[in-house]
């Protein structure tokens, strides 16, 4: 038998380099990003439109327009109807997806190398020549409405929506990017056509191709397929309040709830903020890893939950920090108290060297997993381009993380954790939650999901 009593010696970490990529700006203003990966005979192509549900806000009462537009792209073009389009996609074994988030819309596909030319041609046609048939629009709208209604069966969704609509009230990030059943009903075909024409223009798009392909051939095809049209409307910035004085409690009713879904937090920072990496590191220590303070406390020490996680959600114009967890209803007060306690502890006391080094090592050692598939690399590159970050961000990422000190962490926590301004959103049994959470402030019941 071997002696297991002492830990084996460990080696240092090998250097990890962000994979090489090529940037190309087309005459039309379209930006392309290429990553070659010849390991497998497959190609992924992502086309990002730098307009998401953020823009819906400026067409009052029509949230969900960006999503509906993206989801309608494959419903018909001047040359092909929906049946012909979907058969072509499926016959080529391609996996396609469309949709929109707050800051961008997308259409992407993955396929075998041999089918790439056909698929690239088709997707170009969908973007350039969609006709948005009226009957297909009605059907798609109803489908999204039904999905949204069903989502409201889920406590976590109700809590999340209560949190975001309170935090971003009166701003473009207030509603679900997919809209609401009511807002979707307000959207007409003309709105979709207009949104598409205004936003799906080359200078507002990013093309990212990953896999086993010929770059020059793709550049030529993109030059042929994506032409004309400049972005006519400027991106509207927005005044975010950012700070909310005092704690506020929002409760959404979930019938027969067996647990309380909690979504707790406050305003954070936008993606371009210079403290972005610092907040990521703070989050790792606080609630981004399995052994972070929040999960350790609520799950591993107290057994209150199956899991608890925290995140800084950094968008183009604003951002937020939040804690999400599901706990037994009669433990929701205790859970919130513990979360506040942990936030204060992070603000008041320096993290130990051991904790600091552990988080650095976790991020450094684990980072390569995010570079394992070319798709994941593509996601990172697209995000840098969308949010206007420097392209060499990941060349310095680990060295920046490793240079942070315990003082940096405390300072970041003092700046970005504001336990006295928490928005505490909860879904579950309404009366029980009001009782459990009354110590944190008056509660407001949420009847309508936004």
């Amino acid at each position, binding site marked *: 038998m071997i002696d297991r009593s002492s830990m084996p010696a460990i*080696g*240092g970490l090998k250097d990890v380099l962000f994979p090489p990529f090529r940037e190309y700006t087309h005459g039309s203003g379209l930006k392309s990003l290429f990553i070659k990966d010849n390991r497998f005979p497959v190609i992924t192509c992502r086309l990002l439109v730098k307009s998401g549900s953020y823009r819906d806000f400026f067409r009052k009462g029509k949230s969900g327009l960006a999503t509906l537009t993206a989801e309608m792209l494959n419903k018909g073009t001047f040359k092909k109807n929906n049946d012909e389009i979907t058969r072509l996609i499926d*016959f080529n074994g391609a996996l396609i997806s469309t949709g929109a988030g707050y800051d961008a819309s997308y259409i992407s596909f993955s396929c075998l190398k041999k089918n790439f030319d056909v698929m690239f041609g088709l997707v170009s046609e969908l973007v350039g020549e969609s006709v948005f048939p009226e009957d297909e629009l009605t059907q798609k709208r109803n489908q999204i409405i039904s999905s949204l209604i069903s989502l409201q069966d889920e406590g976590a969704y109700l809590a999340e929506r209560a949190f975001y609509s309170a935090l971003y009230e009166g701003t473009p990030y207030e509603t679900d990017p997919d809209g609401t059943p009511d807002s979707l009903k307000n959207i007409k075909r003309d709105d979709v056509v207009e949104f598409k024409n205004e936003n799906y223009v080359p200078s507002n798009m990013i093309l990212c191709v990953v896999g086993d392909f010929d770059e020059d051939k793709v550049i030529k095809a993109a030059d042929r397929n994506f032409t004309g049209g400049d972005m006519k409307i400027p991106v509207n910035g927005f005044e975010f309040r950012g700070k909310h004085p005092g704690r506020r409690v929002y409760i959404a009713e979930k019938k027969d709830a067996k647990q309380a879904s909690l979504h707790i937090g406050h305003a954070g920072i936008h993606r371009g903020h210079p403290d972005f990496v610092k907040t990521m590191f703070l989050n790792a220590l606080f609630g981004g890893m399995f052994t972070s303070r929040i999960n350790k406390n609520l*799950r591993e*020490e107290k*057994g209150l939950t199956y899991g608890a996680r925290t995140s800084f959600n950094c968008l183009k114009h604003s951002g937020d920090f939040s804690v999400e967890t599901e706990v037994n209803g009669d433990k929701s007060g205790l859970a919130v108290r513990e979360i506040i306690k942990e936030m204060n502890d992070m603000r008041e006391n320096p993290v130990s060297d051991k904790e600091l080094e552990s988080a650095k*090592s976790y991020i450094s050692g684990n980072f*390569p997993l995010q570079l394992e598939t070319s798709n994941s690399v593509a996601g990172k590159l697209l995000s840098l381009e969308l949010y206007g970050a420097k392209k060499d961000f990941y060349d310095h990422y680990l060295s920046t993380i490793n240079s942070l000190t315990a003082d940096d962490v405390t300072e970041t926590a003092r700046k970005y954790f504001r336990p006295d301004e928490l928005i505490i959103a909860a879904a579950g049994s309404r009366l029980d939650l009001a009782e459990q959470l009354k110590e944190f402030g008056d509660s407001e019941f949420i009847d309508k*999901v936004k």
Partner: protein
Amino acid sequence: MIEFREHTLKNGMRLVMSRQKVIPNVIINTSFRVGSKDEEPEKTGISHLFEHLMFTGSENVPQGMFDEILNANGGESNAFTTQDYTSYYLSIPSTRIELGMWLDSDRIASFPVNQESLEIQKKVVLEEKKQVHDNSPFGSLEPESHKRLFTKSGYRWPIIGDEKHVKNFKLEDVKDFFYRYYVPSNTVLTVAGDIDYDETIRLAEKYYGGIPAVKTNGRPVYEEVPLDSVSEDTIKDNIALPARFLFYRVPEAGSKDYYVLKLISAALSSGESSRVYRSLVSGTGTASEAYTLVSGMERASIFSFNCFLSEGKNIAEASAIMDDILEDVSENGLKEEEIVKSVNKVETSYYFKIQTSLRLAESLSYYKMFFDDCSMINKEVERFRIFDNETIKKSARQHLNKGNRVILNYVPKRKRVGND
């Protein structure tokens, strides 16, 4: 082609290795051939509870330190439990593979659980049960379908087990379970990533090879009776819109019929040109979502047809369309175009699956454990290319038979009040 090598350790534990040099990390996957179907009817949920307990510390890893040590060395871990097996992985920088093996093997070398962690993890599991089943829309689908599809075997209860059983587990129960199933002969170890084959064998022998090879009682005999009738039940749930689910008990994972049915399922419902999507979602607007799937298990599989209704639609409309689709396959099989496009989709998805060492390691462990054949990883696409339409019709007639299935209609518990 995925390259792999195999080796049997001196205590009989099987080692599979696959060298992938994309990133400087390794995946250590340890899989044990025990799942919820192997449990005693009065002690359900122990396989899954035990999965939680494996992360709480062991003889040389202080309580609560397993993930602490792993995270502090750039690693992470997770696990899952199925009806048939329990699979653990840890990911760690390749220069620290020895530390990973030390952590992982220590919890197998001797019983790793103490009273305190047992009590905490019981609570965590009960919260998991609430989150996944009790408080989740359609969360009762697994327990409700399994108890109707299976009447004698351990497939009849949910993986997470009965709440009372979970609450009552004693240290002795989990100890018996550990010594019966967490033994070398019941284990497959797969290491994938930035490895050297010879060094991996040396380290595996060092850390895992010395774990005593004990003879155990094995698992309970699998017994099940044929399902030869229709059951249709209505379940009231906290949902806004109804749904209809059809379940067929079909042959076990790896059998010829299993692959034929997987092909049928792929043809019927992958992509927006598929029959299921066209007739239920885009064409008629009956459903917001509808699809078929085959869940493979060791002794039987389940072919499901799930249909989530749109606002204002009723179950009768969906029911007729769903039956028509399956009857047509029994009668006429699939069109050539449907077969070709399904195989093409399988092929595309396959190349994305094998791009991560984690998914690769999990698949290799699975193929080794249940089929003793790791080369199956390289045949995942080819095996679908061989079926002709007669075989497809025959399989559909035999296994997707209207007279032999479980139907569950989920309906809203209460009328929806205008909270759109």
